[in-house]
């Protein structure tokens, strides 16, 4: 389905995750972050860029992997994206929701 985000019509799934990363841009991230009650700081952008890079290299994301990334530790990850960090951060980053249970 289509959703209007930051004035652009983008393709999303039923949970609101972008299905076509090429449609993602920073204004979309800003608006998705606002929806989640988050103001994006430079630290947030660093983490989002890391998640996108991992996704592009087809790495299955998990909290454990993020914690070992040297980009952000688990504690800070939860502080940056307080509720359900991996779900929220991947949504803002425009990449699919990870399926890992760990």
């Amino acid at each position, binding site marked *: 389905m289509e959703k209007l985000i930051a004035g652009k019509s983008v393709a999303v799934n039923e949970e609101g995750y972008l299905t076509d990363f090429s449609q993602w841009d920073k204004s979309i991230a800003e608006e998705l972050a606002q929806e989640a009650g988050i103001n994006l700081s430079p630290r947030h952008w660093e983490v989002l860029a890391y998640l996108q890079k991992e996704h592009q290299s087809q790495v*299955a994301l*998990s*909290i*454990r*992997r993020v*914690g070992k990334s040297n980009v952000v*530790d*688990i*504690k800070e990850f*939860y502080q940056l994206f307080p*509720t*359900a*960090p*991996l*779900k929220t951060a991947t949504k803002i980053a425009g990449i699919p929701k990870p399926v*890992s*249970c*760990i």
Partner: protein
Amino acid sequence: MNDNGSIKKMMIILSKGTLENVYAAFVLANGARAEGIEAEIFFTFFGLEAIHKQKLEHLHVATVGNPAMHMPTMLGGLPGMEALASSMMKKEMEAIDMPDVHEFLDILTASGVRLWACKLAMDMFHYKKEDMYDGIEAVITVGDFYKQSAGEGVHMLFV
């Protein structure tokens, strides 16, 4: 606001020290946090082994009295069988990116899971707070744990 009775907090009681039970409790707590649900674990009886500094690295799967192991009980009782089955399981777990017990505890506490040790069981096993994993917040009674569990959308689970 109508939230359809969604789960707000999971209160997990871990009473067993076998690897499969410890991991079940940990995965449930970690999975809760990943979904934005609060989680706390109350370690009691043999569950204390999962937070005992000297023991937590040496937990085993049960090879006796566990039909799902598909191993004759007499065979499961032979010396070394538990260690063998446990090391095989640990290899499989590493392959699916499952952390070991100590690292899992680190992940849980970093994720905001609160960990409690049961006072009665601590006394019974003659354990001291210093013997336990540093992330244990306090040694508390059952009554304290119930108080801790107050609120709407709180669910309690016994492992």
